[in-house]
């Protein structure tokens, strides 16, 4: 099941027993929720294509002791509505759920207007904001159920592409996939599919993060390779989490490198996999970067 289908299933289930939940769609995902529209007519609304006002409106719902979920395409939810998320949720200390589709360049064929590799970096600037990057549909379900009513503004980044298998994820906690001494690889969300085969037969530790804010500093601190070398594999702008790594291991010196999306407009079309190839989010490149780091 895709993350988008899981999103529908998870929300439909929660709507049934949590009467505080209100779903606001930005004219995206409407067909998927056609049953929910009928069953929960006053709590499932296709608000329209006016994202900043939808976010503010959602904060008004939160002030009415409801739990809003806002769902639309990443750049319109995050970049267009940044100030509304910052002030109306962050500054006012309100809980709400922001669920995007179109992670980074998932919508490769639609061009740069629909790309959003900045989302995690942008939202990190909001104090109290939580950021969740699931790697599979099942992980989304687990993380959403654990976090949706915790009173914080929380961003869930749905991706069109998924890892081949799910990890037993906990909100706010990293998974130690394997330990190693030559380097530590930190993989975030759906990049694990590229990282697992890349690390075969290497004495390299692998930590898997699905919650990047709040960042699980402790797991990284406790599992840092003796070499002090860290390779971040990020499905968003490269280096977004570098400061987290440095913070986690302080005062130990650390060498951090990153494989992720470069800060460039990726102006070609095709498929997301084409952009993966271009930016190096492939098993082959991850392997090469790890080996280079080890040998540096």
């Amino acid at each position: 099941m895709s993350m988008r289908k899981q999103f529908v299933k998870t929300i439909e289930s929660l709507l049934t027993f949590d009467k505080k939940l209100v779903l606001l769609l930005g004219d995206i995902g409407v067909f998927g929720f056609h049953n929910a529209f009928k069953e929960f007519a006053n709590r499932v609304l296709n608000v329209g294509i006016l994202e900043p006002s939808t976010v503010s409106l959602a904060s008004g719902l939160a002030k009415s002791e409801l739990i809003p979920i806002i769902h639309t395409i990443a750049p319109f939810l995050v970049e267009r509505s940044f100030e509304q998320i910052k002030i109306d949720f962050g500054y006012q200390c309100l809980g709400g759920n922001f669920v995007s589709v179109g992670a980074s360049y998932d919508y490769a064929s639609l061009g740069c207007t629909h790309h959003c590799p900045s989302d995690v970096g942008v939202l990190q600037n909001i104090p109290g904001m939580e950021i969740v990057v699931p790697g599979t549909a099942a992980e989304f379900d687990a993380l959403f159920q654990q976090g949706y009513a915790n009173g914080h503004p929380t961003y869930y980044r749905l991706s069109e592409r998924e890892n081949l298998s799910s990890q037993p994820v906990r909100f706010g906690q990293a998974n130690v996939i394997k330990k190693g001494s030559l380097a530590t690889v930190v993989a975030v969300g759906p990049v694990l599919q590229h990282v697992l085969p890349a690390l075969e037969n290497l004495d390299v530790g692998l930590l898997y993060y699905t919650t990047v804010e709040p960042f699980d500093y402790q797991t990284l601190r406790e599992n840092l390779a003796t070499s002090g070398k860290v390779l971040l594999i990020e499905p968003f702008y490269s280096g977004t989490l570098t400061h987290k790594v440095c913070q986690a291991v302080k005062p130990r010196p650390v060498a951090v490198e990153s494989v992720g999306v470069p800060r460039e407009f990726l102006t070609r079309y095709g498929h997301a996999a084409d952009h993966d190839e271009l930016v190096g989010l492939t098993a082959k490149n991850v392997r090469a970067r790890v080996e280079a780091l080890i040998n540096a």
Partner: protein
Amino acid sequence: MPNKKISKLKRQIVQASHFAGEGHVPSAFSVLDLLWVLYDRVLKFDAGRPNDVMLDRFVLSKGHASLALYAVLAEKGFFRPDNLDTFCKYDSALGGHPDCNKVPGVEASTGSLGHGFPIALGMALGSKIRQIENRIYCLIGDGECNEGTIWESALLAAHHQLSNLCCIVDHNHSTDRALELGDLAAKFQSFGWETLTIPGHDHEEINRALNHRHPSSPLLIVAETTKGYGVKRMENDPAWHHRAPNDREFKEILEELS
């Protein structure tokens, strides 16, 4: 003949601004009559239970008029009036823009224009969803009507037939120099709102408008106001938009308001 209560509140506002060396006094005077009538005669609230979602709620979307809201809230018992003199001090709860997590009775943290109105819209929608029989009031500035979210919200409120929502526009024409708004009432009517236009410093007219029934659509009240109303030197003078009176001006203004 100026209302004695209003004159008292204006003196408090001028004093708070003078002590702080800060404040948007003319904006506060533009909306003060509207807020006073709302809280004194219309809004169902309990100062001992601020932010009770079951009661009526008010959002000051043009947050820079905070001094008027603070003066009214203090007069109505949400906090002690002498707190007004701490306005904008480092540890004060009362900032240049209102903070709902610091000030009892402030329903939304506003200041960035174009946020409070859609927040109020969400409160009104939330009340409908929860079947709460309260009313949501919001005050926006005419300059604020330059913001796209105002018109997005106007569209949404009419679409959802939010008959529990009343929006007041403080129409003091201060930003006409930037962008002419034309006929605001007609614009909101075309979106599906019921509208009234009133003289914004006339308490009887304000009261009548705020009690107007609008059973199937949201209500917009265009309040024709004067920025800096009641202090001649401030009225419609852009130089006073964000400036506090000095010692001499403070004394003269207090005399004018006596």
